[in-house]
C-alpha cells in the first residue's frame, strides 16, 4: 500500500456527521409500489422523450423514454405494469411545480421485459464507444446528487486521461447510501471501476473515502486486492465538509485545481461517484438499466432511519413509511443532505435518480430566520472551499451589482452552505447567491435574445436597403436604355416608318371619333338641361 500525498482545499467545516443513525442495518430492498411516477426531466440536460403511450403494457426495465440530444438520459420502467398517463405531476422541488411524467400502474408481477440488452460476459471485448453507448442506453446519471448523464462524461476526445477519481467521500451529514453500498457491494463497484478504466484508460485511479467510514474503506480495499486492478488505490481522506464536492475531492487527491468555469477533463481528470460506478457495473455485467437506487431515509423526523433500495418513481411518502413513518412534530422534508438538500413542500412526489437521501427534521434541526446586519467578520471567507469572499458577494448580490459579483467569482460558488452555516448574523447567504446567479443567467439569456433580434433587424434593414438599391439600379438602367433607344431613334431621324405612320393615322381617327362623340353628348346635355325646369 503506497502512502498517497494529500492535497487540501481551503476552508471547510467539521460537522456532526450523524452517520451512525442510518448504518445500523443493511440496505433493505423494497418491492415496487402500486403507482410509479417517472418525470421526463430528472437529469441535467434535455428532457427525455416518451416512447410509450397511455394504455401500453410495459415490462420491468423496458425503455419508456429515450434521451434527446447529447446530454440527456433514458428512462426505464421500474417494474412491469401499464402506462396509465403521461401528464404533469408534482416534482421533488421546493416549488412543487409539475413536470411531464410517465405514470405506471404496477401489475405486481415485477416481470422483466423481453429483449433487454444481454449481460456482457467480458466487457473487454467491447470498445469504449460501445460501452459508453450501453451506459447511455441504461439511463445512467451521476448518482451523487448532480444527475449529470454519465455517458457524456465518458465521451472524451483523448486516448486516455491522467486520473480517474472515484468519489466515495460522502461528506454531507446524515447521508450514508454510498457508505453502505461500499460495505455491501464493493466487488460490484470495483468491477464498475474496471469498466471505466477500460473506457478512459487512466494512468491512475484514486478512490477517495473519508476516514469516518472504516468499514467501507476495508471492504473496498479487499475488493481491490481481489480484483487486482493496476494503479488503483483507496485513498483515505480526512473528514471535512465538502471534501465530496467534485472540485474539492480532485484537489485533495491530485493536488490539481479544475480551472474556474472549466471541467475536470481539462486537467485530465474524470470523477465518478461510487453509486454511479455500481450502476455501470449492473448495466454492463448484469444487463440491468438504472431502475432503482440506494436511498438513505433518515433524520430526527423519521422513526427508523436506514438505507433502502428503492425503485425510481416510488413516492417519497412510501419511502418514509418503509422507515417507520414520521415522528411527532416533523417540520421539514429534504431531498439530499442538510447542507445542500432541497426542501419539499409535500411527500407526494416521486423519488428521482439523483435523490441520495430523504431527510426529515424536527424544528430542533432547522435554520433560524433572525438575520442581523453583516459585521464583516470574515468567518464566511475562512470556511469557503472555493476561497471566495462570501460577504463581498453578499453585498454585491444584495445591491444587484452583477458585474462586481461576477468579478468576485460568483459562478465559482458551489453553494455548499459553509458560509451560511457559520455566519454569526444568520444571513441566508446561499439564497442570495442562488438568486443572483439566476438573475444573471436570465439577463444573459435576455441579452442573447435581444442581440439575436437586433442582428436579425439589422440584416433585414440591410436586405431592404439592398433590394431598394437594386431596384433603383434596375430602373435607372432601364431608363438609360430607353433614353438611349430614343436618342438612337431621333438620330435615325425622318426616315419614314410605315408602322409609325399607321399608328399616327389610327390615333388621328380615334381622336376624331372621340371629338364627334363628345359634341353629340354636349348637345344632348344642353337639350336635357333646357328641358329640365
Amino acid at each position, binding site marked *: 500500500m503506497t502512502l498517497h500525498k494529500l492535497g487540501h482545499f481551503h476552508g471547510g467545516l467539521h460537522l456532526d456527521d450523524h452517520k451512525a443513525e442510518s448504518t445500523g442495518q443493511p440496505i433493505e430492498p423494497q418491492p415496487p409500489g402500486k403507482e410509479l411516477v417517472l418525470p421526463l426531466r430528472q437529469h441535467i440536460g434535455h428532457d427525455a422523450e416518451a416512447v410509450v403511450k397511455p394504455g401500453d403494457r410495459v415490462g420491468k426495465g423496458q425503455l419508456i423514454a429515450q434521451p434527446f440530444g447529447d446530454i440527456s438520459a433514458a428512462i426505464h420502467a421500474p417494474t412491469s405494469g401499464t402506462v396509465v398517463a403521461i401528464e404533469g405531476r408534482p416534482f421533488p422541488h*421546493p416549488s412543487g411545480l409539475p413536470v411531464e411524467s410517465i405514470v405506471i400502474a404496477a401489475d405486481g408481477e415485477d416481470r422483466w421485459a423481453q429483449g433487454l440488452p444481454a449481460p456482457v460476459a467480458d466487457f473487454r471485448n467491447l470498445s469504449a464507444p460501445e460501452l459508453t453507448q450501453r451506459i447511455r442506453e441504461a439511463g445512467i446519471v451521476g448518482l451523487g446528487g448532480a444527475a449529470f448523464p454519465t455517458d457524456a462524461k465518458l465521451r472524451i476526445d483523448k486516448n486516455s486521461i491522467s486520473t480517474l477519481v472515484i468519489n466515495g467521500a460522502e461528506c454531507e451529514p446524515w447521508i450514508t447510501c454510498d457508505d453502505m453500498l461500499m460495505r455491501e457491494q464493493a466487488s460490484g463497484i470495483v468491477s464498475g471501476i474496471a469498466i471505466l478504466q477500460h473506457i478512459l484508460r487512466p494512468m491512475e485511479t484514486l478512490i477517495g473515502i473519508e476516514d469516518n467510514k472504516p468499514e467501507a474503506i476495508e471492504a473496498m480495499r479487499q475488493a481491490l486486492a481481489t480484483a487486482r486492478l493496476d494503479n488503483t488505490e483507496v485513498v483515505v481522506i480526512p473528514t471535512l465538509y465538502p471534501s465530496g464536492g467534485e*472540485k474539492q475531492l480532485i*484537489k485533495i487527491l491530485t493536488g490539481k*485545481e*479544475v*480551472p*474556474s*468555469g*472549466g471541467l475536470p477533463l481539462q486537467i485530465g481528470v474524470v470523477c465518478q461517484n461510487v453509486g454511479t460506478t455500481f450502476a455501470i457495473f449492473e448495466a454492463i455485467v448484469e444487463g440491468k438499466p438504472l431502475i432503482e437506487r440506494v436511498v438513505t431515509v433518515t433524520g430526527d423526523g423519521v422513526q427508523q432511519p436506514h438505507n433502502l433500495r428503492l425503485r425510481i418513481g416510488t413516492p417519497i*411518502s412510501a419511502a418514509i413509511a418503509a422507515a417507520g413513518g*414520521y415522528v411527532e412534530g*416533523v*417540520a*421539514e*422534508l*429534504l431531498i*439530499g443532505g442538510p*447542507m445542500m*438538500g432541497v*426542501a*419539499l*413542500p*409535500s*411527500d407526494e412526489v416521486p423519488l428521482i435518480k439523483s435523490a441520495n437521501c430523504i431527510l426529515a427534521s424536527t424544528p430542533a*434541526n*432547522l*435554520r*433560524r430566520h433572525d438575520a*442581523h*446586519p*453583516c*459585521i*464583516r*467578520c*470574515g*468567518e464566511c*471567507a*475562512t470556511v469557503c*472551499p*472555493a*476561497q*471566495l*469572499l462570501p460577504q*463581498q458577494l453578499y453585498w454585491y448580490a444584495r445591491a444587484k451589482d452583477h458585474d462586481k459579483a461576477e468579478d*468576485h*467569482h460568483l459562478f*465559482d460558488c458551489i*453553494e455548499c*452552505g459553509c458560509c*451560511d*452555516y*457559520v*455566519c*454569526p*448574523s*444568520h444571513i*441566508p447567504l*446561499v*439564497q442570495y447567491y*442562488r438568486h443572483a446567479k439566476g438573475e444573471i443567467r436570465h439577463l444573459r439569456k435576455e441579452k442573447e435574445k435581444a442581440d439575436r433580434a437586433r442582428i436579425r433587424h439589422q440584416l433585414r434593414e440591410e436586405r431592404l436597403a439592398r433590394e431598394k438599391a437594386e431596384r433603383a439600379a434596375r430602373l435607372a438602367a432601364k431608363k438609360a436604355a430607353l433614353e438611349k433607344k430614343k436618342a438612337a431613334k431621333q438620330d435615325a431621324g425622318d426616315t419614314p416608318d410605315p408602322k409609325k405612320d399607321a399608328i399616327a393615322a389610327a390615333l388621328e381617327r380615334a381622336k376624331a371619333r372621340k371629338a364627334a362623340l363628345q359634341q353629340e353628348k354636349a348637345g344632348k346635355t344642353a337639350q336635357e338641361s333646357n328641358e329640365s325646369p
Partner: protein
Amino acid sequence: MKFQIDSSPHLPPVNDVSRLMRQVLLALLPGIAVASWYFGWGVLINLVVATLLAVGFEALILAIRRRPVVPVISDYSAVVTAWLLVLALPPLAPWWLLTIGVFFAIVVAKQLYGGLGYNPFNPAMVGYVVLLISFPATMTNWMAPTTLADFHLGLSDALRVTFTGEFPPGLDWDAITAATPLDTVRSGLRLGESISEMQDQIPFGLLAGEGWEWISIAFLLGGLWLLWKGIIDWQVPVGLLAALGLLSAVFSLYDPEYFSSPLYQLLGGGAMLGAFFIATDPVSGSTTPLGRLLFGIGVGTITFVIRSWGGYPDGIAFGVLLMNMAAPMIDEYTRPRVYGER
C-alpha cells in the same frame, strides 16, 4: 403531509453576533480587573455609566429611526463600544466627558451611518478622538497607579469625583494626577532629557511603566484567548504588534536615548488593547486575510510615527481611524486567489 420550505443549508446556526460580543466582553475582564486594581473604583464606575449611556443612546436613536430596539440592543455591540472607550479614558473621567464620548461613538459614528455593520469608522475610537481633540486637558487627567499613590479614593469618593468633580478634603487634581508612561517620555524628550535620564526619575516599573505593563499583559491574555477561541484572526494583532515592535526596535537601536524600547512601546500604552480589541473590529477594518495583516501593520506604523514625532502621546486611535479609511481599498487589492483561478 405539508412541510415548510426553506433554503439550504438546513441547520441551526453555530455562531451568533451576540455571543461573539459577549465573548469579547469576557476577554476584556482580566484587563479591567488589573486596571481597577491599579486605578481604583473609577474604572468600574466609568464602565457602568458608559454602558448605561451606550444602551440608552442606542435604544433612543433606534426608536427615532423606527427600528426594532430589543434585537439590536441585545447584540451587545453597544456595550463593547462603551467598554473600549472607557478603557482608553482616564479612570476619573467626569460624567459629561463620558456622555459626550459615548454620544459620538454610538449616535454619530455608529447609528447615523446605519447601525452595526454599516459604520465605516471604529465607533469607540471616534468617540475617543473627539474627546482628545475637544478636551485635551481633561483627557490627560490620569492618576498615578495606586501602588505609587499616597492617597486613597473609596467608592463614594470616586463617585463624587465622577459626578460632581469634588475631591475629598485635602485632595485635588494636582495632587493625584500623574502622567502616563508614554506621556512622561514624550514631555521628557521635549525638555531635552534622554530616556536613560528619565528611567531614573520616573516609575518605569518592571517592564514598561508601573501598573501599565500588567494591564497590557492582562489584555494580551484576553486577546490570546479570543484568538484561541477563533473570535479574532491573528493577522491584525500580529501585524500591529510586529510593526510597532520592529520599528521601535530599529529606532531604539539607532538612538536609544531618544526612542524608547520595543517592550516599552508594546506594554507601556494602549498597544495590547488596540491590537487585540480595537483594531480587530471587523466592521470598520479589512476583511481579507492579507488585507488584515496590512491593516494591522498600518495601524502599528502610524502609532509609532505619532508616538515618536506626533502631537499626541499615543497613536492607536488615529492609526485605527486612518486605516479604517484605507480598508475598502486594501480589500479591493488583496482579494485571495479563488479556487481554479489562473
